[in-house]
């Protein structure tokens, strides 16, 4: 399969990982350097980092659902300083371009994070996780076109590296956010993030330590197909499509819906090399179609 251009980054094939679903550093502890030799993805998207370290949510953090799972992890990470010092050098050893996912609760926090990350030559692009409240307005940035416009307006001048906006599926019109992001200078959008979900224990109490979480897995695949198609009809910047991809034909469907690149998420939990299989099936499927 020929290479893919994502905002000027040349990718060997169209399969990457979804943020927070493949920890390349931990995977090397489990599988050794086979992770490098057999790396499943054509780019690596880091777990989201925040300005300060976070320990994450109290357990339980997981719930198994029909053809899906709910997670409530809470973005545990070392913070910007720890990430740049400890993790980035290890991630730079991966054989593919590196995309760093960042989140902050203010535009100032985002700006510091984006500046610090963008100046590192190991980083090819930055994904903005905007599914968090702005402490000043109380609004979820990624749920409001005006908030998205304002954030991109403050971040765009800080770097020439591609900025990717991760879209939430938890609003009526995700395309409106994509349009705002494109107009404010975003280079790409990625979708879908997880869907808000609140599993209950057998006794009827909230199961997750944080009360609720996000649903992912094959159950959300058709939602992703619809939302990617809607966004593709509204913007011309490249789309990273994801949501429940388990096979090459699922990836092909998302590409047909308008995605330039497809991200594999929950499938990697079930099989760490799922991305490799999906890419192979995609190549075989394209070849079979002639």
């Amino acid at each position: 399969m020929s290479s893919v251009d994502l905002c000027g980054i040349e990718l060997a094939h169209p399969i990457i990982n979804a943020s927070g679903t493949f920890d390349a550093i931990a995977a090397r502890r489990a599988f050794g350097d086979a992770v490098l030799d057999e790396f499943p993805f054509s780019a690596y998207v880091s777990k989201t980092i925040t300005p300060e370290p976070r320990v994450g949510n109290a357990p339980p953090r997981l719930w198994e659902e029909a053809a899906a799972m709910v997670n409530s992890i809470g973005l545990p990470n070392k913070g910007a300083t720890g990430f740049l010092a400890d993790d980035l050098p290890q991630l730079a050893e991966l054989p593919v371009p590196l995309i760093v996912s960042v989140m902050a609760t203010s535009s100032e926090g985002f700006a510091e994070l984006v500046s610090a990350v963008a100046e590192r030559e190991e980083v090819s692009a930055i994904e903005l996780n905007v599914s968090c409240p702005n402490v000043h307005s109380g609004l979820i940035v990624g749920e409001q076109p005006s908030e998205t416009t304002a954030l991109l307006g403050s971040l765009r001048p800080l770097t020439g590296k591609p900025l990717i906006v991760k879209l939430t599926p938890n609003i009526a019109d995700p395309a409106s956010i994509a349009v705002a992001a494109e107009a404010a200078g975003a280079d790409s959008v990625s979708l879908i993030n997880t869907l808000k979900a609140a599993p209950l224990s057998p006794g009827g109490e909230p199961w997750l330590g944080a009360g609720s979480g996000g649903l992912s897995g094959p159950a959300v695949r058709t939602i992703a197909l619809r939302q990617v198609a809607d966004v593709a009809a509204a913007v011309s910047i490249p789309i990273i499509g994801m949501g429940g991809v388990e096979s090459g034909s699922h990836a092909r469907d998302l590409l047909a819906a308008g995605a330039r690149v497809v991200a594999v998420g929950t499938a990697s939990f079930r099989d760490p090399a799922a991305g490799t299989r999906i890419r192979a099936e995609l190549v075989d499927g394209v070849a079979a179609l002639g």
Partner: protein
Amino acid sequence: MGARRGPASRGRSFVPERVLAPFGRRRSEVVANEVSGGYRIVSSVDPSGPVPAAGQFYMLTCERGWGGGGERPFLPRAFSVADAVAGPEGVRLSFLLEDVGPGTHELARLGRGDGLLLTGPLGSPFSMPRELNRDAAGAILVGGGIGLAPLALWRRTLAERGLPERSLLGFRDRAHSGGMELFRCSEVRLASEDGHAGHRGYVTDLLNVMLEGDDARSSVVYACGPPPMLEAVRALCAEREVEAELAMESPMACGYGACFGCAMPLRDGGYMRLCVDGPVVRASAVETALVAGAGHR
């Protein structure tokens, strides 16, 4: 790809005994599925994986029937390896399980020739007694119910190295007991809450008596079992200043550090990921062995 400078070659915190897994899920073939009391012992031959170390685990998925007929299971299930024997066809792996939920129900139905998909071996294994206590003269293995599984392979490992070990196994009742054949040729003392075998009471009663002996300080305790039992072992060993390792369990989606679901609170704050920082942990590292979320099967 150029030269690799991995964590191992940089001498970072690599556990030397950790056996690395091949990257990706692979198929093993089921060669036996036998009733053992109230449990089952499922054995499969892994054609291409390494021999695991005791305490490590595998993520298991049935090749058929997983997420198919019913709503669940969807995610793989983590199982400690109870026995591992290298042979001409591959490594024969044995897993001890009890049919308690949708995942274990499918696993319990496996027959000879069926495919068992696995990723592993994963996680940290048990440490040698001398690594925990320089004066260690022997090991005390404490298993509760289905949790005896990793101790069975550990007992054999210790015995093969000529290290003295004593095993204490506890069960709730006759219906919730089994796996004893995994401990053949071993000195085993039993406890059961209903009194059907051995001491009527908890296995920690036996441990309590054993640690009252003069040789307590020269013992190292290895335990695996339900969270309340592990917590009792942890508290007892802390009180008696006996080094202990606990093989713990937590719900996890991936088993290799990706999902961050298996968060275990650390004594010094924050969490560890039980899959890559455990499942065998120093008892002194955790505040409690009571794991949130252990009830979702």
